[in-house]
Structures are given as C-alpha cells and as structure tokens.
C-alpha cells in the first residue's frame, strides 16, 4: 500500500494509538509484561492480563490523562481489550472534534 494514501495513514495512526494505549496501561499499572507482547484482542481481565476491578479505576484515570477521553459507567464494555479501548478513544476524539 503506498505510504501517502489516506488508508495507509489511518492504519498507521491506529497502529501507533494501539501501541500508546498498551504502553499507558502496562506502565501505569506497573505490570511485568512487555507492551509489545500484549495482543490487542487479549482480554484485559480474568485469564487475559489478570486485571481486577480496582485496575479499572486506574485505566479510567490513564485514558483521561493520556488520551483526553473519559469512560463512564455505561461504557464499561470498553475494558474488554486494547482494541475496544482504542475504538472508544477514536470515537470520542472524533466526537470532540465535531466530526
């Protein structure tokens, strides 16, 4: 895919945002895991990264501080995986930009 196409640039932005969210969560929660080894569809809770309910508070805080988006109680489904968090962050940022 040519690097100057809109699709390529969108894919590149998404790749970088996923990596940034992985780094934010792994670093913020001080998890002994290499962020690059976390699958974007891997469950964050239970058998996945084994996070617990207290970690959700920290993720809400990290997403707000690092990406400017706030997760409410009604949007708790986004805690499922990195991809779900990034889907949510992209949609919230688009909404904020009036797109």
């Amino acid at each position, binding site marked *: 895919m040519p690097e100057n196409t809109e699709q390529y640039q969108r894919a590149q932005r998404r790749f970088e945002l996923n990596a940034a969210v992985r780094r934010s969560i792994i670093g913020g929660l001080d998890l002994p895991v290499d962020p690059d080894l976390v699958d974007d569809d891997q469950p964050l809770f239970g058998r996945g990264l084994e996070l617990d*309910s*207290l970690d*959700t*508070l920290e993720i*809400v*805080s990290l997403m*707000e501080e690092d990406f400017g988006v706030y*997760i409410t*109680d009604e949007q*708790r489904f986004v805690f499922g995986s990195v991809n779900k968090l990034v889907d949510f962050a992209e949609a919230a940022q688009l909404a904020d930009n009036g797109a």
Partner: protein
Amino acid sequence: MERALSATELLQRLPHRHPFVLLDGLHSIDPGVSGVGIKNISISDPVFAGHFPGRPIYPGVMMIEAAAQACGVIGTFKDDVDGDQASIGYLATVKRFAFKELVIPGDQLQIQCRRHVSVGSLIEFKCTLTVGRKTVAEGSLAISVGHGDKQ
C-alpha cells in the same frame, strides 16, 4: 444549600467509634463529589503516647484514615439518614500520598476531597490536607461503596 455535619452527626453516618472516629466535622459537602473534613489535632489523642514520646507528631497513616473517613461519608452521602446506615465506604486503594510538613498538637487539619474518577461502586478521590495555608499532605484514595449494618 450548604451541607455540613458536626461530630455527633458524623456518628450517624460512620460505623467507626472511639478511638477511631477521626473527623471532628465535614462541610461544603457535594454528595458523591466533594467536601472538606475537619480534624483537630489534640495532645490528648492516645496516638501521641507512642508517636513519639516527648515529641508528638501526628502519624501520616492516621491522616490517610481521616481522609478515607471523609471520602466515605461524601461518597455515600444521602440527605436523609434514619435508622441504619444504608451503605459504607470501604477503603480500597491508597495512591501516591506524600507528607510535606509535620502535623503536631494544636493544628487543625482541613481535608479537601474531590472525586477524580469512578467506576461502578469504586470512587477515587484526590485529597489535599492543609493546616492554615500550608499543604501538609496530598494523595489519592479510592473507596468501595458497600452495604453494611451500623452497630
């Protein structure tokens, strides 16, 4: 309407009893959001028998507990309290507390608590503890709102 609670009114909302009721008052209450706790530091507090003999310094861990009691009342606050307390705030996490100045008998601690984030029954508050104009401690703590029967 200014919502404020005296020490005796706090006893209707806190399950704690002597010697572990650490608040003397709570004012500027915005239910679930913010409030300011008052803690008067007295030389007659039993903690000074050991912390430290001849050099009384109020322990940081007690300041965290006082802040947790304030956050617990703010987080579970309802205007009407009759009979048993419907819910209790249990201390769930303590994060990045720093103690910047010594707190000694004669000081009055003002404990400013403001909700930062919340998920489900968990509420995280940012707390700033001041004596006069000086910030003596600050940090974050989370409470878990649960049900409990008042004794």
